[in-house]
């Protein structure tokens, strides 16, 4: 199966383009749009689709490969890694990065740990309310 890229890059996002690519690919893998083992666009093809430089896509793929999320076979192309633990791990990583952000903002606001935990519990309660 060959996946057509439907990624998009934001110019006002503030984050580097390669990080945006990494995040969007991870999302597609995590929700199952890009299933394990499937072929993903080549570096050059994705660069053309997104109208951005080859080197930027190369960097994103390099880091995804380094994290074991994709594998690149020389001359064959790049594929989503066939690691079943992956999607769980992706969400775990994403949660960790959000928690880091939360901790940073809390420090900026001068919140105590107790206040932070309280706010987190309130947010979790709110989320449960919405699900019901």
């Amino acid at each position: 199966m060959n996946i057509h890229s439907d990624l998009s890059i934001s110019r006002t996002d503030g984050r580097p383009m390669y990080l945006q690519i990494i995040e969007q690919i991870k999302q597609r893998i995590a929700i199952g749009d890009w299933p394990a083992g499937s072929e993903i666009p080549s570096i050059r093809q994705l660069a053309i689709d997104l109208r951005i430089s080859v080197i930027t896509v190369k960097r994103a793929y390099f880091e995804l490969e380094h994290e074991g999320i994709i594998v690149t076979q020389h001359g064959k192309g790049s594929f989503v890694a066939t690691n079943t633990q992956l999607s769980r791990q992706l969400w775990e990583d994403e949660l960790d990065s959000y928690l880091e952000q939360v901790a940073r903002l809390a420090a900026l606001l001068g919140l105590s740990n107790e206040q932070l935990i309280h706010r987190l519990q309130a947010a979790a309660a709110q989320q449960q309310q919405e699900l019901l």
Partner: protein
Amino acid sequence: MNTHAVELHKVGKRYKYFSLNDISLSLPTGSITGFIGVNGAGKSTTIRILLGLVHQDHGSVQVLGQAMPEQQVLAKREIGYVSEDMRLYPKASLAWHMQFIQSIYPNWDQAYAEQLLKRFDLRAEQKIKGLSHGQRVKASLLLALARRPKLLILDEPTTGLDPVARQEVLTALIEVLADEDRTILFSSHNTLDVEQISDQVVFIDQGSIIEARSKEDLLDAWRRLRVRVAPDQTVAQLPYVLQHQGHGQLQTIITNRYSPELQQTYQQAGLEIQAVELLTLEEIFVASIQARREGKNL
């Protein structure tokens, strides 16, 4: 196949009021290089040397494996060149130009030319004198692209284009690179275009190349740090501070050697780091030029 489409080694050219100072530069095959400099920095002189239109006083110039200017006839068959002041015949139509180029260059790809006509929203039967500036640029680009040159040299291709035409041109350029044997060098004032499509970035100022490296590495090395300093502390003496602003407790530092270790060094020196921000290519370019003109080492 050469791994580098262009190699300049210590190339110099002296004019009465301007000189190109021993520039060295290589363009990897299959890449796009953005060439940025203010007016009069030496972009056009460098490009003319690559085309064999100007002969260097000293230094070696290799273009597609051919020594310039000696073997320029061989090299030029494979070079496509587009500049702002392209001379097209005003009274002739675009179709006439297409046929003319086709009769000279055997590599001409008519199917691709027609595809570009549609994409660029041009009509072949229209005379050049009736075209707008943007249409003329796109026509010149079409004439160069459809020859399928190994090296495409573009002098300010997006200057004066409206946003739609600019995206059309940038897309056509990126697509050239689907073929890994082809290489693009384009000069621009528009750092946004360079930031979007370049693999490599070259800054030139006052006849010298002051930066030439991968765009990703370049963007990665620069940061603006918003810091809080003790009332009696100065930040100028800290390592790799290229610029700093502010006199109160809140100051900004710009560095071109950012790493987590550098951030630690600053923290150990007593700075409270409140934010670390990336710079745009434009900010990096301006800061590089200013630093160099202030006599600082980049």
